């Protein structure tokens, strides 16, 4: 039987123009025309395999390493002196440690969301950004993990959180959301790492085969596990990948749900709300997409990847940011409704204190960053402009940090008893830890873009029209 004719998307365009379909309804392609299997392979793998390290990369990496130095210094002082160097004290026992933890873990949601949920929804445009977003997830989770591990005060006893028979006769309290958190975050980190690595295997084989130096070949070859692209292997591989996507989808939703339980299960006004799980998950997706945009816009420019990360990708991410931003703004509104409708004097006080109390500036800034700024994304002009997308994403990055500030210390600092009220301010060590974790995140990211393909090469190949083969008798 004759093979079904496959027309590339870009060749379809003249026809649609003849039909006088307005230009704005014709989707921009997910990959620019004129590419073949070899050009995609060469373009992406050359970024990794070229001998000369770009000067800009070196500068960026050194700056990030400076941040890592700040981090290691802070951690050394922290372990030496204890968590007293932070601004936490009664009444705010949680401060920037938990703000930053939740901020990072939220950012870490976009990767798995793009990889898993968009894969299951067959959103082809995910292909050129998923690898990058997954790496971002891993590094964000690594930065996040530092905080709960260190804020225990005696991090050398952190292993007590894991259940094992011990001479003290103690077991962890599994009814506590903090224990749920341990399992949720460590499971998420492990599964994200496996998802990312499994996706990398065929590309590592490509790098192994394309490298010219023996030691480079060996290094990539070791991690490629001897992948040879056998049809049987691909079959099991695709199946495993699909199953992983199916498993990661509820996982990614569960992680921020459980993080929100850290607050929602407590009785504090401003924390004790049943709508926290969906509100946190939407916020995480919002923050994650903002961070993907923050990183992808400069990266595509610097590495000349405009053919693969097209305006369509940026526009779609802008749309996701708008949608999740609206959910988040709705949640901010619902907090008022729940508080007022409850008639509870402490709930109502918490809301008044939030809007008019000592942290009111942050609350207003939160609304500007997360409520107002994403509204730009209603307009195609802003959605398709990398500059405006970047500006909006930066607003969201700041806004999501403020959101956690408003939830955590701003709720803690004035609880039920006025005699126990106080104020919370981050100390220089709080800020150096935050700057340091950003440094760690970027240092890992710089290493990633230098040594691993930041776009999935084999999945990009499948986007080409000539990749579609049809078996004989398939149409029977």
């Amino acid at each position: 039987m004759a093979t079904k004719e496959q027309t590339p998307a870009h060749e379809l365009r003249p026809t649609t123009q003849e039909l006088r379909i307005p230009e704005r309804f014709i989707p921009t392609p997910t990959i620019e025309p004129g590419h073949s299997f070899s050009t995609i392979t060469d373009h992406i793998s050359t970024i990794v395999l070229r001998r000369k390290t770009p000067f800009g990369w070196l500068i960026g990496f050194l700056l990030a390493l400076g941040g890592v130095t700040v981090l290691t210094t802070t951690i050394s002082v922290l372990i030496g002196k204890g968590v007293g160097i932070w601004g936490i004290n009664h009444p705010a026992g949680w401060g920037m440690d938990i703000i930053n933890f939740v901020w990072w873990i939220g950012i870490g949601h976009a990767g798995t969301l793009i990889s898993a949920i968009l894969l299951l929804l067959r959103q082809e445009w995910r292909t050129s950004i998923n690898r990058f977003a997954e790496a971002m997830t891993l590094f964000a989770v690594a930065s996040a993990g530092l905080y709960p591990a260190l804020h225990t005060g005696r991090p050398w006893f952190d292993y007590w959180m894991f259940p094992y028979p011990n001479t003290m006769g103690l077991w962890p309290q599994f009814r506590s959301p903090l224990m749920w958190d341990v399992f949720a975050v460590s499971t998420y980190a492990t599964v994200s790492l496996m998802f990312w690595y499994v996706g990398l295997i065929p590309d590592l084989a490509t790098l192994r085969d394309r490298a010219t130096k023996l030691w480079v070949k060996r290094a990539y070859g070791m991690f490629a596990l001897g992948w040879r692209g056998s049809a049987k292997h691909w079959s099991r591989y695709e199946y495993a990948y699909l199953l992983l996507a199916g498993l990661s989808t509820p996982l990614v939703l569960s992680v921020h749900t459980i993080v929100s339980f850290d607050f929602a299960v407590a009785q504090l006004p401003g924390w004790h709300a049943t709508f926290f799980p969906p509100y946190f998950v939407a916020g995480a997706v919002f923050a994650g997409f903002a961070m993907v945009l923050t990183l992808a816009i400069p990266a595509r420019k610097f590495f000349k990847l405009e053919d693969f990360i097209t305006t369509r990708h940026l526009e779609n991410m802008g749309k996701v940011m708008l949608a999740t931003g609206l959910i988040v703004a709705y949640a901010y509104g619902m907090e008022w409704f729940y508080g007022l409708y409850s008639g509870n004097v402490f709930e109502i006080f918490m809301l008044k204190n939030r809007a008019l109390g000592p942290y009111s500036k942050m609350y207003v800034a939160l609304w500007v960053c997360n409520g107002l700024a994403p509204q730009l994304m209603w307009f195609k002009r802003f959605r398709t402009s990398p500059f405006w997308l970047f500006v909006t994403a930066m607003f969201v990055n700041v806004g999501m940090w403020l959101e956690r500030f408003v939830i955590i210390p701003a709720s803690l600092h004035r609880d039920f008893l006025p005699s126990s009220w106080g104020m919370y301010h981050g100390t220089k060590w709080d800020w150096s830890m935050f700057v340091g974790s950003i440094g760690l995140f970027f240092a890992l990211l710089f290493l990633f873009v230098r040594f691993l393909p930041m776009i999935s090469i084999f999945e990009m190949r499948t986007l080409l029209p000539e990749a579609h083969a049809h078996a004989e008798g398939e149409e029977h």
Partner: protein
Amino acid sequence: MGVGKIREGLYGVIAEFHDPQMLLDAAHATHEAGYRDIDAFSPFPIHGLAEAIGFHKSRLSSIVLGMGALGGIGGFFMCWYANVIGYPLNIGGKPLNSWPAWIPITFECTILLAAFGAVFGMLALNGLPMPYHPVFNVRRFDSASRDKFFLVIHARDPKFDLDEARRFLSTLGPREVTDVPW
């Protein structure tokens, strides 16, 4: 398959193709010609290729299901044992077996073990890691991870005859047909 074993003689005969359609057609033709011990190589997954070479169902789904069940039961047991048997705490006379509080961890353990099953199960069934394989002896096999497509007939196939296999593969329109030494 002689895993990692270097033997005397021939592993098979391999043909190189230009595009996925040719490989898929060739795989069908080879299977129809009666060859059963064949394999195809491509730089990306091709829909229907595994079926074309006679590969059908994978045991992976049952491995993942089994591991998931183990994770779920194990996770629940872990919480139950620790808080009911190992270190019971009487808090206001509330029941010790407070199972709803253990659901989050049960869920996470289910996902974790099922994911382990998917990844390590896939690698194990694929026989990976396998640093040495005879097909890597083929000079142009480097491009199997770039833009070329390969089909191999294994020498251990009952119908295998070197000259006949070479002749048959060259009728399928390949760029080149080569022997694969062990």
